């Protein structure tokens, strides 16, 4: 039925286009001078129809589900919902839905069968009204647009105004996204803070979000102090940066200044491949190759190494960041004017001296900006740590131990069944909020450095 609504809209808008265009051409052939060419008259009808009707259909589709559900639930016999929590209510709704979809398991209660029938009826009704609404709207707009066609009508300006409006809307989507992120995170975090005090979250040294098994656990509902989690994140990020920055920087310097052309022609695309590998692949690489290698190396040295060390996750993340750092360093080095290089070389500097004493200091802001963005990436990186780091929060700085990170906790807390009223789920959003804020501060800072630096040489 939705497809039918869209089809009607499409046909109607094309018809409106043809109608208006024909009318405008008629006026021109009648000898009058059109203000706008007939094509714009057609486009005017087309856009005037497409834009509002699509909006109406989309809003309808978004609201239809929840509204129909609410109607079904409110029509249930009085008393069936008493004393049930949201999870159980959802379960009943799902059962009613699957019955109305024709998948019946066992012998459902008669009131459920009735509700399923009700649901199917409502859905039918909703779909039908949507089609009718679409057709009516299209017809009304078509008539309106048709009577607009006159020699004086500024169709081009009207069309351009609509297109401008659309483009402004597109640009504002970015703001909507940010607003959406901030409000959703803030809302759930607020809910979380009603259950767990802010001071415990920010300064607590224990993170045990699981449902308590023993009575002597730190807090009856689990412990929600994020310090060990962020500490784990910092350990892994540090390992990654310690590996990525020197390797990335040195390869950038080598490729920029010393490498023969042929090596550069091969190396740059290879680095791009390294940059394009999805992080889930790096995560698998970490558990398949790197972690066992580190463990057996540790064993041969007589050191006991945890199975999912911060070192394994961090070093694989470091490899992931190498192309990122090296491309930023390359940009920064190439932005230094050639005159600087020539000046140093003409004084008799070797190329190494030129790079280290002149290019590198001049490129430092760009490189630092890139490294900061890499830090923010490492903090927000999810799949590698979900697969290769630990699940238990561990208050340690030793990279050979297993630690957990903010992103690991978010994913493990939310994977599987989620209802929005227990502290476990809400804790994930609180962690998400902290993650967003930390990376936002780093990003703004880093982007500012990078941009300022680019302006300095433009």
């Amino acid at each position: 039925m939705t497809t039918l609504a869209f089809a009607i809209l499409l046909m109607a808008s094309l018809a409106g286009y043809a109608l208006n265009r024909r009318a405008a051409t008629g006026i021109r052939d009648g000898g009058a001078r059109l203000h706008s060419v007939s094509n714009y008259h057609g486009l005017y009808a087309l856009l005037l129809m497409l834009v509002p009707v699509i909006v109406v259909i989309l809003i309808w589709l978004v609201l239809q589900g929840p509204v129909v559900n609410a109607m079904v639930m409110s029509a249930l016999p009085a008393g069936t919902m008493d004393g049930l929590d949201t999870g159980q209510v959802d379960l009943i709704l799902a059962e009613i839905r699957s019955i109305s979809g024709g998948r019946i398991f066992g012998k459902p209660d008669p009131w459920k069968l009735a509700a399923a029938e009700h649901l199917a009826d409502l859905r039918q009704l909703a779909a039908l009204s949507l089609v009718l609404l679409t057709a009516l709207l299209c017809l009304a707009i078509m008539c309106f647009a048709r009577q607009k066609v006159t020699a004086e009508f500024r169709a081009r300006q009207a069309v351009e105004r609509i297109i401008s409006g659309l483009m402004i809307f597109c640009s504002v989507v970015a703001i909507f996204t940010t607003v959406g992120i901030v409000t959703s995170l803030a809302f759930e975090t607020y809910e979380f803070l009603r259950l767990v005090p802010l001071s415990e979250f920010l300064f607590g040294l224990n993170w045990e979000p699981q449902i308590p098994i023993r009575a002597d656990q730190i807090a009856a509902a689990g412990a929600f102090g994020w310090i060990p989690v962020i500490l784990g994140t910092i350990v892994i990020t540090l390992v990654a940066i310690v590996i990525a920055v020197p390797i990335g920087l040195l390869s950038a310097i080598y490729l920029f200044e010393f490498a023969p052309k042929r090596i550069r022609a091969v190396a740059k695309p290879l680095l791009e491949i390294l940059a394009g590998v999805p992080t889930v692949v790096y995560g698998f690489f970490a558990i398949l190759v790197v972690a066992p290698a580190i463990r057996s190396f540790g064993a041969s040295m007589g050191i006991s190494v945890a199975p999912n060390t911060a070192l394994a996750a961090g070093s694989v993340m470091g490899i992931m960041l190498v192309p990122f750092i090296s491309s930023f360093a390359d940009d920064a080095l190439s932005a230094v004017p050639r005159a600087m290089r020539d000046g140093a070389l003409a004084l008799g500097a070797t190329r190494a001296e030129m790079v280290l004493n002149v290019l590198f200091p001049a490129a430092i802001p760009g490189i630092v900006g890139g490294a900061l963005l890499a830090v923010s990436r490492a903090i927000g990186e999810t799949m590698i740590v979900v697969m290769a780091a630990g699940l238990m929060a561990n208050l340690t700085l030793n990279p050979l131990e297993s630690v957990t990170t903010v992103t690991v906790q978010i994913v493990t807390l939310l994977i599987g069944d989620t209802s929005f009223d227990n502290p476990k789920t809400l804790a994930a959003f609180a962690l998400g909020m902290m993650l967003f804020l930390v990376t936002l501060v780093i990003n703004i800072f880093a982007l500012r450095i990078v941009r300022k630096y680019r302006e300095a040489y433009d």
Partner: protein
Amino acid sequence: MDDLRAITRDVDINATKISARRVQVHYGDTHAIKNVDVDIKERTVTAFIGPSGCGKSTFLRCINRMNDTIDICRVQGDIRIDSDDIYDRKVDPVQLRARVGMVFQKPNPFPKSIYDNVAYGPKIHGLARSKADMDEIVERSLRRGAIWDEVKDRLHAPGTGLSGGQQQRLCIARAVATDPEVLLMDEPCSALDPIATAQVEELIDTLREKYTVVIVTHSMQQAARVSQKTAFFHLGSLVEYSDTDEIFTNPKDRRTESYISGRIG
């Protein structure tokens, strides 16, 4: 101008410092320098003039092997400084460039302090044994660059904060700090205003006491004002080379005459 003439007369007494034979330069497929022979005299200002794209800058950059830094550039032929072949395989361009300083078209001080700019060359080449030594070299170079009085109170201010003319004199001071024998200047005044140009030209004239100066310029007036010998390049060839007053008053070649009287260029 009278002073200038007085010195001009004894130019030929000076020995040959740089001698180039059959020099050819290719930029990829472009034949940029064709068979250039020239002898440049010691402690003389030699000007290279010619229309843009004639190869004068390219030839200049052969003398300190700056063309080596461009991948597609090939240099053939024989260039000698004091009879040392500078394109010999055993010659280290790093060492050569300590001996042959260069000043560029646009002033290019490093984004460091004035002091560090001048001290950079002596530092990398290990010319100063102590801090006091370095201070002395810096002061001497800045004096030779005729900029000491203007900057002596702010040696640790950034070199990029100076005016264009000051920056260029700072670059000259930086170039002489390694005590080179030859100083190459690639249109050193083209980015400067007339007053700064006059100051730099005056400086060039005093540099002749110690250094062999080769200057590329697109301004014939400048060539006439500062040089004793002039070489005219056209389409990659050296057309005419002789005493400056000779070239400007009595050119031998028709092309030189056309250029000087403003018909080509």
